[in-house]
Structures are given as C-alpha cells and as structure tokens.
C-alpha cells in the first residue's frame, strides 16, 4: 500500500518498472568497484525506452537486475508493485549473444516458454507460428538454429520472448553483431512489432543512432560509475527518417555528451 505513490507517473500512465536509487558494486581483486550509482528510473507502460552509454558503464548489469538475473547492492527494483527477486516470464530478455537452444528447431525454440508453462502441443505451436510469422521466418520453422544467419537468430530470439506475452521486453544490444543493413531492417521490424503488440521495451545499446531511431525516451549513462546524466524525449514520427535535421541534431547532441564521458 505504501507503494501506491509510485504507481502513477505525472501523466497518470501506468508504471511497469521502477528503479529506486539503484547502486551496484562488484568486488574485483579485493577492491569494491561501483559500476552503477543512484539510478532512479520509471518506465511507463507501452514505452520504448533506450539506455545508451559507453562500454562498461553498466548497461548490461542494469538490464540484468531488471530481469532478476542479478541483484542491486543498494536500492530496489519493482515490476508494478512487486519487488523483483527472480527472473520471470513477465520480463522477457533478448541477449546480446546468440542464445537459441541448438538442439531444438526454430519452432520448438519459440515454443519453449509455452512448453514450460504446460500448454498442449497444438496450442503451443499455433501461438509459436503466429510469432514466427511476425518476425518473417515462417518458412524456417523446422530449421536448426545452426542453419540461420545472425539476424535470423535474433529474430527467433525476439519471437521466443514475445510468445510469453511479457509485461516488458528487455533487450541487450540484440543487433550489435549484425551488419548495418540487417540492423536497420530489424530495427524497423522491432518498431512495427512494438506498436502492434503494444509492448513495453527497455533496449540497451551503445549506438546513438539506434537509440534515437527506436526510442520514445533515451537515457544516457555516464562512465564509471554509471549514472544517469541526461534523458531525452524523442518526439519524432515513426518510422523515423535518419536524415532529418531533428534526428541529426539529436544524434550530434547525444554523441557529444557521450564523448565528454570517454
């Protein structure tokens, strides 16, 4: 009950994720090393939030804590009203590395979440096929992950997370290993899926261009220890044109902000 005050943001929208004064330290060579300091962040329902920051500033660490794969040294993280204590199907995670189960074909990879939930095979496959179609890979349903390109693997990983219909989709530089053309294509697809499915997405990247293309709001982290230095609201129409002056100005501004940090 005491948490009700956090339930609504200024515009009265619903909060999905709340980070309260998060600090994360690691012990490295017997020295305490703070990688994130005093992070306060609210993520609204349906929002596309991007977190950018220099390499090693703690982006992955932050996302892992939201997922429940890691824990803050200080501070608390909430999903809705519940404090996050472990991973959950409500917080889907797309990893930077390829993470498909290599012994399962594409369809069985996507159906994994439904399988562990105990759904019947027929229902499982029916739903999995819907998401497979959404990422445009219907003809690959019985392929092995080995046979897929990097971009296709990440598409399947996205479908695998979406099939659980999670509250939030957490994405850690999912496109960073891809070539520019593929990356741009997947960014467009992601924006389309996001608006169709009305998901909340927290997307980590060190690519400023990517962040501006995708996000409603871009949070910029500083380096060592990571703190939020600035937040940008991006009010450009989607699908965004990278060559407009607004886009380029924002890119310049955020990039220079990050360069000061390095």
């Amino acid at each position, binding site marked *: 009950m005491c948490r009700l005050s956090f339930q609504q943001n200024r515009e009265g929208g619903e909060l999905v994720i709340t980070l309260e004064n998060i600090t994360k330290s690691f012990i490295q060579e017997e020295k305490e090393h703070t990688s994130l300091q005093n992070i306060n962040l609210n993520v609204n329902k349906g929002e596309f939030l991007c977190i950018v920051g220099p390499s090693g500033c703690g982006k992955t660490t932050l996302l892992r804590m939201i*997922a*429940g*794969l890691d824990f803050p040294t200080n501070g608390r993280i909430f999903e809705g009203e519940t404090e996050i204590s*472990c*991973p*959950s*199907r409500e*917080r*889907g*995670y797309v*990893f930077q*590395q390829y*993470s498909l*189960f*290599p*012994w399962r074909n594409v369809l069985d990879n996507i159906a*994994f*979440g439904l*399988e*562990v*939930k105990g759904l019947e095979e027929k229902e499982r496959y029916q739903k999995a096929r819907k998401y497979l179609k959404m990422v445009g890979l219907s003809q690959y349903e019985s392929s092995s992950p*080995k046979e897929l390109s990097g971009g296709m693997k990440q598409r399947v*990983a996205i479908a*695998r*997370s979406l099939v*659980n219909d999670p509250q939030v989709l*957490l994405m850690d530089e999912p496109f960073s290993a891809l070539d520019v053309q593929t990356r741009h294509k997947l960014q467009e697809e992601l924006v389309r899926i996001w608006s169709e499915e009305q998901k909340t997405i927290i997307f980590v990247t060190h690519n400023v261009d990517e962040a501006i293309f995708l996000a409603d709001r871009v949070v910029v982290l500083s380096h060592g220890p990571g703190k939020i230095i600035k937040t940008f609201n991006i009010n450009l129409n989607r699908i965004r044109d990278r060559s407009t002056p607004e886009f380029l100005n924002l890119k310049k501004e955020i990039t220079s902000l990050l360069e000061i940090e390095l």
Partner: protein
Amino acid sequence: MRKMFISLILPVSVIIIWTILTTFTGLIPSYFLPSPSEVLQSFETLLMNGQLVQDTSLTLMRVVLGLTVSALVGIPLGILMGWSNAVKDFSSLMVGIIRPIPPIAWIPFAILWFGVGLESAIFIIFVGSVFPILINTLDGVKRVDKVLLESAYTLGASNSQVLLKVAVPASLPSVVTGLKVGVGVGLMCTVAAEMIGSSSGLGYLIFTSTSMLDTGSAIVGMLTIGVIGLCADYLFSRIEKEVSW
C-alpha cells in the same frame, strides 16, 4: 577415398614386413611370432569350431552390461554433481580417491565378492568405465553456456525444467564423449578380468592360447578386440557428430 588409401598404407606395410620376417626369411621363429598365414589358419579354426563367435559375444555382452551399469550410475550422478555444488562437495573427495585406483587392482576383491563369472567381470568394467562417464557428464553440465540457462529462466522455466530441458540436452555431447572413452576402458577391463577371473571370452582365449603356445589364436583374439574397439569408436564418433552443438 584418398583418406582410406593413406590410412591403409601403414597396416598393409606392417603385414608385408611381418610376412617377410616370418614366412619368407624365417628370421623369426613361429613360436615367437606366428606368420600371417598361421594366424589366418587359427582364425579359420576358431571360426569353424564356433569358439571365436562365442568368446566375442561373451566379451561384448560383458562390455555392454558393464557399460550399461556405468551409464545408469555415472550419467545421473554426473548430472547431479555438475548441477548442484552441494552434491559435488559431498562426493568429490570420495570420487577423487577411488578414481585413480586402476580397475585391475579390484580384480582380487571382485573375485572374492562375486566369484569367477559374469558379476565380477561387470564389476571390473563398471569400476573402470564409470569415472570417464561421470567426469565427462559433470564437466558437460558445468560448462553449459550460461546464456542458455538464463534464457530458460527468463522464459519462465523452473529450476528442474532448466535442468531437464536445458542442462541435460546441452551436456549430451559430453555424455557421448564419456561413453566413448568408457567403452575403450571397459573393453580393456573386460579382457583383463577375463584373463584372470573367467573361463571364457576373448581375454580368456588370448591367455589360454598363449600358455599353450598357440600364438596364432592369441593374435586372432587380440585383433578381434582391436576391431571391436575400432567399431565402437566409429559408432560413438558418429553419434558425437550427430549431437555436436
């Protein structure tokens, strides 16, 4: 084709030199090393009187039985030890002490406990092959890519589901490697056990024929073991390829 040709060069040359040394020059007397034709003769005799088939199938049966017991014990135990540090801490000292003991050293006790026969052979094979299976399985589970485990958790899998649906299939290649090593060790153990504590099998065949100076039959027994080992290795290499992820 080329590979097959290259791999045949060495055995064929050995047979040629062997023939020259024994048959054509007579440099080596036949009780010291029988000539290829004598070995072939022994092979024919053993094949016709059924002894070779009988001994081979007995040895094979022992290896398969012993290996099955090893797999039934080693794989689950390896999975548990790889998954739970508590289980590992609990059992690692015990495993560490028993593992280095050569299987052959168990033969006297095997005979004492189980008598001469199938049970003691199975016991010896078990002692020899359970550790490679266990250690490889444990290692496989320990080295499962963390990102696969974490993916499963974020997709809603429980601990036991992650174990059964991710850790176990992911470590399958190591399990197969363990079985492959286990077969080799198991075969060696069987023959050793048969030489001492048995009255049948290829080990027994080798042992009795040498003591009766029937060196031809002994070599037939040895080569049969070699061929079995080769086939088993080939089979498991195929399976390994099948499950290499």
